[in-house]
């Protein structure tokens, strides 16, 4: 595998990884697009792209933690069980790890976009902006779960639904950005070959 193929494969895994993280199809209680597969794809992307971005290697232990927790959660979900909410310290570790992981990963993807996008392109800026919005929404959504809303619990549910919906929309844009990054890389490669 050449370096170019490796990078292309890494960018593909990154884009599909986010697809698995956020798009779910369930057959009864079984998710056929499990989250842990998404993290395994992102770990694979980290392995392939860490030569391009040194900081990505720092994410490997966090990625393994997130893949591990979601890997345990998946068979549990067959029986209708859910790790989320059963042990708060683990929830907090996973949330903190997830926040850092996605922020750093998307920061590195934006840096790669800066490298591969056509001159004057704005993909890097768009990816950074979407990353920032996503991380803030992620944080606010989590915090909303723990703030005592008292008699305004109906409003709390509405706010959280709105936040989750907004996160999903932002994530769709991020996925589109990552596929665009892969396309930029391929186009750059073709242009170099022509030249």
């Amino acid at each position, binding site marked *: 595998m050449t370096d170019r193929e490796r990078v292309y494969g890494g960018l593909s895994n990154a884009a599909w990884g986010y697809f698995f993280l956020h798009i779910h199809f369930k057959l009864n209680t079984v998710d056929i697009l499990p989250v842990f597969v998404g993290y395994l794809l992102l770990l694979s992307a980290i392995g392939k792209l860490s030569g391009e971005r040194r900081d990505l290697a720092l994410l490997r232990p966090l990625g393994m933690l997130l893949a591990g927790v979601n890997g345990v959660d998946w068979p549990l979900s067959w029986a209708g069980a859910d790790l989320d909410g059963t042990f*708060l310290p683990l929830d*907090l570790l996973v949330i*903190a790890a997830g926040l850092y992981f996605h922020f750093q990963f998307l920061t590195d993807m934006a840096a790669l976009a800066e490298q591969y996008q056509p001159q004057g392109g704005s993909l890097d800026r768009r990816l950074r902006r979407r990353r920032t919005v996503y*991380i803030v929404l992620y944080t606010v959504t989590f915090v909303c779960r723990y703030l005592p809303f008292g008699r305004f619990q109906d409003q709390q549910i509405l706010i959280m639904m709105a936040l989750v919906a907004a996160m999903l929309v932002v994530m769709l844009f991020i996925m589109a950005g990552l596929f665009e990054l892969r396309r930029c890389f391929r186009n750059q490669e073709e242009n170099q070959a022509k030249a």
Partner: protein
Amino acid sequence: MTDIWSFLLQTLTVSGAAVLLLTVKVMFRDKLSPRWQFCLWSVLALVLLAPAGWGGRHILFNWPQWVEILKTLATGEYGTLTEVLVPIPLPLTIPRTWADWLFLVYAAGVVVLLVRYVVSYVRLRLVLRQGEPIRSQQVKAVAERYGLPTCPVVAVDGLPTAFICGVFRPVLALPAGREPDGKVILHELLHLRHNDVVWGWIIAFFRCVHWCNPILWLCADWAGNDLESLCDQRVLERLEGEERRDYGRILLSMADERYARAPGTSSASNGGENVRRRIEAIARFKRYPAGMALASVCVTVVLAVPLVVGVRAESVPEWRGTSAFTMSAARAVRCSTPAGAIDAYAKGILTGELPYMAMSAPLDRQNELAAAYGHHGSRRGIDWMIEQAGLPCRPSSWEGYRVFNLEKLPDGSCEGLLVIPLSRPPEGRTEEDGAVWIAAQPIRAERQGDRWVVVPQGNFQPYQDYGGWAFVTFPREAPIPAKVYEARHGDFIIRAEYRTTTTLCLESGSSTDLVPIPHGIYGQTFGQTSEVHSLYAVYTGDPADKGTYKKIAVSSRPWDGDRARPQLRDPRSGTYSSGSSSSGSSWSSTRLTGDWADEISLDGGGTTFGWERDGDQIPDRIAADLYLNDELAAELTLLPVEGGGVHD
């Protein structure tokens, strides 16, 4: 903290948070900067400062529950609840039990350690006073070059290294005879600029308060070292190239130096092991990913909010064990709303679960409930309720319960009549077609400390109702109480009777609905409240004068608080001579013909409320316009009759 149990609760709560934060710090050791590493301790500081278990909340684990269990196992006492008023020891009582003496030993330990720290600080200041005040050109040069503040400098014999001492009158102490490297001075001046000595005192204070907790001593050590690492980072941010390497070499040379740090000081040299960790952090200085400020803030926020706000126990654990375990765990679940307390009490009656009763019972009844649990076991509390609370027979639990005339009193407590359906007629009574047997008990929900409890105001009384459980409306003939309002004008007393029915949210046949919601608000716990009111006019004049009255009409509307008197409909106008609206208004007129009775029914109305205020559906007063012979005779204000309470 006023007893050993409150100290235990506080220190366990803080320990849980500390272990989590230590784990997070290890996880992000090579990913987030020393600035973040030190700032994360501020989350622990907040947990240390917040009284554990405030508002019935716990952090990470249900520590209050386990402390209550431990306390009951150790003392056999059920009638107290551990509370932390302030997060420092306050031995307010004369020791009587072994637990009191243990607390006194702990409090003495705090004082001894505090005194030791203060004495060592005073001795250090005395040593520094004997030092020679100098005008160090190097200190002046470093301060000018980096724009840092300075303070008096003293040279003292025998000092291993330079350090800053003091908060209000800080002194930079230098070893006599050998002026340290400029980078060490820079390090100390940065401590001075950022008042890091204050942090040192705060850490020392909490070290004293939790002197017997090794986890917090470990945290104190880490926090002190993180403070030095942060200062190293500030130094490195001001140095370039070779100077940075020199700084690392200087730290390395300090690794074997003596370490005798006193509180109220800050020094670049803080022991070999700590210096080794700091050198590792320096080696990572350029490798921390850049632009991580937002991620750092977000990670801190998601950790801080659950650790500071905490969560509330939602109900008693499902497991059932001995009295000490089960009833102590139940006592620790604090009902935080009147609706929650009423719900726990009523569901305890319905299911016979004594732990539900314990959730809502005053502390002075906990021993009695625990004894009943020990005698009757988990699910046979209904026998005890039949024996002790006058419950006529087993309730029909799947039908839920209702509360009539739920009223919020001026002191914030709520009163009402709890009504439950019975599974069969009480002993010695017969079952009639179309009738249901119900049992009613007057109850009062009141706040005791930070928990809401239910205090029964009498025993259960059985009643037979022909409306059926689904349509219990309690006609006037039924002996179900109503709130009565009256006003007099001339020969007439105008009387309004007011009843509300608060219905539990219950899916038919769902056993999960019978698990209490201790923090439930009205709209969650109860499905709705219906009100029914009836209006009467009572003639009190001379029977011979009855003939002067040909027609009587009354229009009324509830009138709450300080609002202006509501506008009332004129019963003489419109198509209908009587009616009611969803606002609570009602109007009615009656022709008085022949030998009419003294008591004249004027109909009434009814509606279903939304949930605007907890238990406050009963109006303060009622505005009523009285019309006699089609003339407005009086604008009346119907007030609750004497006592203002509920009347048979």
